[in-house]
């Protein structure tokens, strides 16, 4: 008599443990999210304080009064506009170069056959394991022999010669597109270049967007490249410019200005992230794991 009842009971209790697990998960995640938000909050809070309120004990969590003028002061002490212009110039040219060269080469590796192609592809994959340190010194010497140091060229030109990770990623994308689409294009007499430009590029827009966004973050956050190649302060990027003032005697101790600057430096990343975040999960699901 009791036999038919038991499964329902068990299912009900299972649902209960499931919802309990979910509640615990959400609680843990919320605590984690708060932990992540605290540093950001601390940054914003410091950035909006008057200098005399920065070093208070116990600390002032909500700035009072709110010192909006800190942001204006930053523009006075630091050539922030110049840093931003330099960074934008580098980032845009690196993004165009990376998108063009990587998608171009990736199409060759994915769709066109030629002797030696796969060995070259393997060699390119292998370079992903090579620590940047190994190529660093000769690359630096090479660029300085060309007289390119203290210019943006060493930061931009390499991007036009492909990047192993993105070539790999885009190749995986191209491989997932049915070949029949190209065949019909070929029957119509389209060249491989037309097919790449008119057919493959539009079809892989999400992948290209992912590459663009990753390239943006990598270039925007790049510290080492500008640090070693650029000397003049007027040529610096936001990343290195910021580090000057972390250690400088004029701004360094003025934590409120430093944090206002840091806050301004994170805003471009934040904006790009908000607009592009839906691409991340999607593209990593489709390509990131096939390696």
């Amino acid at each position: 008599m009791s036999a038919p009842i038991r499964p329902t009971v068990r299912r009900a209790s299972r649902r209960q443990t499931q919802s309990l697990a979910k509640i615990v998960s959400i609680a843990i995640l919320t605590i984690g999210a708060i932990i992540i938000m605290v540093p950001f909050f601390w940054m914003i809070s410091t950035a909006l304080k008057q200098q005399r309120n920065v070093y208070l004990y116990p600390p002032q969590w909500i700035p009072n009064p709110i010192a909006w003028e800190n942001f204006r002061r930053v523009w006075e002490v630091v050539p922030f506009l110049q840093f931003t212009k330099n960074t934008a110039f580098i980032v845009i040219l690196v993004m165009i170069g990376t998108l063009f060269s990587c998608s171009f080469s990736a199409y060759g590796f994915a769709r066109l056959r030629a002797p030696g192609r796969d060995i070259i592809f393997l060699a390119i994959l292998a370079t992903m394991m090579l620590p940047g340190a190994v190529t660093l010194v000769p690359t630096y010497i090479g660029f300085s022999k060309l007289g390119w140091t203290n210019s943006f060229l060493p930061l931009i030109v390499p991007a036009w010669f492909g990047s192993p990770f993105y070539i790999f990623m885009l190749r995986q994308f191209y491989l997932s597109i049915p070949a029949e689409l190209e065949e019909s294009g070929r029957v119509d007499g389209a060249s491989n270049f037309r097919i790449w430009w008119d057919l493959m590029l539009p079809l892989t827009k999400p992948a290209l967007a992912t590459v663009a966004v990753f390239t943006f973050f990598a270039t925007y956050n790049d510290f080492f490249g500008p640090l070693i190649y650029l000397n003049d302060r007027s040529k610096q990027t936001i990343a290195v410019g910021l580090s000057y003032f972390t250690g400088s005697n004029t701004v360094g101790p003025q934590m409120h200005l430093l944090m206002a600057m840091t806050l301004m430096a994170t805003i471009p990343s934040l904006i790009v992230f908000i607009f592009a975040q839906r691409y991340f999960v999607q593209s990593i699901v489709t390509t990131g794991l096939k390696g």
Partner: protein
Amino acid sequence: MSAPASTTSSSASGLQAGYIQPRRRGMTMRRREMIDCYIFILPAVLGLLIFYLGPMIASLYFSMTDYDMLSPATWVGLENYRTLMHDAIFWKSLRVTVTYSVFSVPLVLGLALFLALLLNQKFRGVTAYRTIFYLPTVMSGVAVATLWKWIFNPDFGILNLLLEKIGIHGPAWLADETWALPALILTSLWTAGGSMLIFLAGLQSIPNDLYEAAELDGAGIWNRFRNITLPLLSHVTFFNLVLGIIGALQVFTEAFVLTRGGPNNSTMLLSVYLYQNAFQYLKMGYASAIAWAMFLIVMVLTLAVFRSAPMWVHYQETQGNAK
């Protein structure tokens, strides 16, 4: 290039020509394809030669020279490597780098997996949580390092202020020889979001019916995790582990901005030591030797992980067939 196609038909009958011509056209098309292929992959090939293979060989050469970029390089053979063997700071930086990696990589992977498991459920707002946990990864670099410096400030930093609240008198962190490296390791957790996302993608590719079947068999949460999730996720773990090791051995920005290798070389990562030698002391030859030592360590560790893979990495033959 297209010439051969027209020369064939004279000796062949109409029927044979019907067979031959497409083949001939196939030949030229294949040649066309080959040439196009080389044109397409040209940027990558040039990149490989100019920015990887060339510098690699040059680096090996420079590592056997004395070169300060002002006077010509002089050949010294293995002298730089011999000096390296007796360089106390090099050994210290090797120890620091290994310690950093040994703690940072497992902690980051563990945290990333834990978060991915929590975020692989269906509830309202799950995408918002995913976004929040991924956010720190794109906010890395100098800006966040600067922020960390302020957080770790011994007297006014938020970390010690919070520790004070629970009755702990915090250390001087970055200014303290004992605590500087742990502080650096702590900052590495900030970017667990990248690995988390890759784990998450892996989790989503595990077929749900496996869990349902196991649940009907009465397997609890831990059993399901141990016997389904971990094995079926092992190739993702492998991927994250390899990337994590390679990344951890090369960390530079955080260490450079936060401590510049100090205090008393307690955070002198190999990359920072290399930077100092190359760009502060202009010892390009010696720096190249350090780079090759780094390369060797990366290779040995990566190889060890690859070698260990058959013991713990399971590849799915076909989906759903795995159990």
